[in-house]
């Protein structure tokens, strides 16, 4: 049957209420008249384990929490912008005298709030969404049940408690360190590393147990997970190494940039490589281009991190080599976008309606935009102009709140009904989420990049601080509006998840829950749901 006809038939398929045994996961078909059932004929009620081990349980937890963190990120971002415009009004530092603890200093400053904003975005929003993507996609591209599902589920607790505690201590200058990745004290770093190890363990055990060469998404996930683990371990161990301030700052800059290129960009690309073929129901246009994109990304991402080593103690040639890495990142970005656009061929009408395809297309546009912006920022003349201005945060915004965020939205739109076993047609909320997030990320990035150029120009012209602040305030007001729109998108996403769970009609999707011995039956185990529409 042609694909369109098959989908149309599925759309018209009448809803068949599921009996409660199916809803409870007991798929035994009752061949007897239910009215003649006696109490002892009923199967015992399903026992819910303390630690969920059902397929996708860990991925669901990470996905839901990621949207909570996106709302928190937007809130902290608004505060940061407000502090840039009204620094004297909102900046304060107090010392509290507490029993047992002694003096506790609390500092709310532009620097501490910006650190909180970026930490909430990277560790709260992007990382939780990335974990959800990895745990959802890996079993589906390998055709095998995720190993260590309960451990991955426990990782939710370790990771998110760590992030929440870490964001609290950002405002305690006596406890927190400098730098994004090493800002948290060691016990909190330990929690985060536990969470990271749990997801790494689940991913690698599943991958190594698989009997097929993994799809390109798994290659992105593998390198991204290992790099994130390694870089975070280095960053959290910095206070123990007893390095001087310059060396510590250099290693911090290296790990921050590495987390951006390997983790944020890598997971976004890996997710898009899965979502686009799934939603278009087309095969990937070229496996070779996908692997070439992966190879170039894996090499250039590491080089790009070296470009963050900017100090007289580092030979300029090393820094220049790192800048070349940032420029070279354009190649894998273009290749990935090209092959995924070719994959969409023939299904472009999908992007006309808000949904997975539209989210993915916007993510691809931001991948190109962010990589070009980073490449331009790596040029020497541009660096001289915009160093230590808002430019860097603008480029970061397009990568993190643009490319990675929309990749996560696409994943959530595709995966949430499957995770919760619900049938969910697209709703106006998806349109609200799409447009508010798109306008928010685009405006914030453009405003900050523009502010960076103006800031650098004013300093070069020797403008007094009052003039610089007054000029930048206009750009920052626009950025504040953009971050506010992102907050609205987060709320729309959360409401959508809630409605899917509470209002969506129960549906059976094919899940990878069988042991490996029965995996190779020749059936696409990730394909269409049994009673729901779409793939």
């Amino acid at each position, binding site marked *: 049957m042609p694909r369109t006809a098959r989908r149309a038939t599925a759309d018209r398929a009448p809803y068949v209420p599921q009996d409660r045994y199916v809803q409870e996961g007991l798929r035994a078909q009752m061949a007897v008249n239910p009215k003649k059932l006696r109490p002892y004929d009923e199967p015992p009620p399903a026992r819910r384990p303390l630690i969920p081990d059902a397929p996708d349980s860990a991925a669901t937890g990470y996905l839901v929490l990621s949207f909570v963190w996106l709302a928190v990120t937007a809130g902290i971002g608004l505060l940061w912008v407000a502090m*840039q415009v009204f620094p004297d009004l909102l900046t304060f530092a107090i010392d509290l005298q507490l029993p047992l603890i002694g003096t506790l200093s609390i500092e709310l400053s*532009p*620097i501490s709030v910006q650190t909180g904003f970026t930490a909430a975005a990277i560790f709260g929003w992007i990382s939780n969404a990335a974990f959800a993507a990895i745990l959802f996609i890996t079993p589906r*591209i*390998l*055709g095998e049940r995720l190993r260590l599902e309960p451990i991955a589920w426990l990782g939710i607790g370790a990771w998110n408690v760590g992030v929440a505690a870490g964001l609290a201590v950002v405002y305690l200058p006596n406890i927190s360190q400098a730098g994004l990745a090493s800002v948290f004290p060691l016990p909190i770093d330990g929690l985060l590393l536990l969470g990271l190890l749990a997801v790494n363990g689940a991913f690698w055990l599943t991958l190594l147990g698989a*009997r*097929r060469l993994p*799809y390109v998404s798994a290659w992105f996930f593998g390198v991204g997970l290992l790099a994130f683990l390694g870089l975070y371990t280095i960053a959290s161990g910095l206070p123990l190494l007893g390095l001087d*301030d*310059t060396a510590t*700052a*250099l290693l911090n*800059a290296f790990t921050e940039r590495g987390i951006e290129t390997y983790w944020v960009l890598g997971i976004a690309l890996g997710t898009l490589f*899965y979502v686009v073929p*799934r939603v278009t129901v087309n*095969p*990937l*246009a*070229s*496996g*070779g*281009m*996908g692997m*070439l994109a992966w190879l170039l990304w894996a090499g250039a991402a590491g080089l790009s991190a070296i470009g963050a080593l*900017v*100090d*007289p103690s*580092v030979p*300029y*040639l090393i*820094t*220049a*080599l790192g*800048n*070349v*890495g940032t*420029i*070279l990142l*354009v*190649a894998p970005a*273009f*290749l990935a976008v*090209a092959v995924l656009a070719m994959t969409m061929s023939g299904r472009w009408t999908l992007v006309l309606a808000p949904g997975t395809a539209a989210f993915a297309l916007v993510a691809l546009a931001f991948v190109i935009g962010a990589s070009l912006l980073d490449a331009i920022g790596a040029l*020497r003349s541009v660096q001289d102009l915009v*160093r*230590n*201005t808002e430019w860097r945060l603008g480029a970061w915004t397009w990568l993190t709140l643009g490319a990675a965020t929309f990749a996560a939205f696409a994943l959530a739109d595709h995966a949430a009904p499957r995770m919760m076993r619900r049938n969910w047609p697209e709703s106006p909320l998806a349109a609200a989420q799409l447009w508010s997030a798109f306008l928010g990320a685009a405006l914030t990035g453009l405003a900050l990049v523009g502010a960076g150029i103006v800031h650098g120009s004013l*300093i070069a012209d*020797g*403008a*007094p*601080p009052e003039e*610089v*602040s007054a000029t930048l305030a206009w750009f920052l007001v626009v950025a504040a509006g953009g971050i506010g729109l992102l907050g609205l998108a987060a709320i729309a996403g959360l409401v959508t998840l809630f409605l899917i769970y509470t209002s969506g009609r129960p549906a059976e999707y094919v899940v990878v829950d069988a042991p490996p011995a029965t995996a*190779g039956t*020749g059936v*696409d*185990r*990730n394909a269409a749901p049994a009673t729901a529409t779409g793939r």
Partner: protein
Amino acid sequence: MTVHTPISTRGRGIPAWAAGLTVLVLLVGGVYLAGNLTGENPPIIAEPSASGGQTLEQAARQIIEGAQPSCTACHGTDLTGGAGPSLHGIANGPKSENLQQLASDHPDDWPNLWIAGTDPAVADIDRLGMPQFGTTLTEEQIATVVEYLKTLP
């Protein structure tokens, strides 16, 4: 046993244009590297300033050029001297005779006192036309300028 690939691929090859694009970007990177083999990086650790996120040099130059009158009007655009003396090398002490005693009495903050000109310690020193910047600049701004001047060789 037949194992279906969960996501199939239409082809394994790399289109010629994709290979060409990759080579082009690699060439651009190589050309950029060849043109940037030498240079010097700025310091990574920068002093924060009121306008936020500036390097020490940027913040200090902003104050130096924005002061009324501008420091560069007398000391030159590169602060190597003009109507006034050179400001390079003040980390090793003052060059002007009239400041030697002040430097020995206040070895840590003599430049701050001299630039401000409002402290009783400098009241009896002939200022030789040097304005009292303490009336127009804050202590923090003067400290930023002094810190920067001490980095000049």
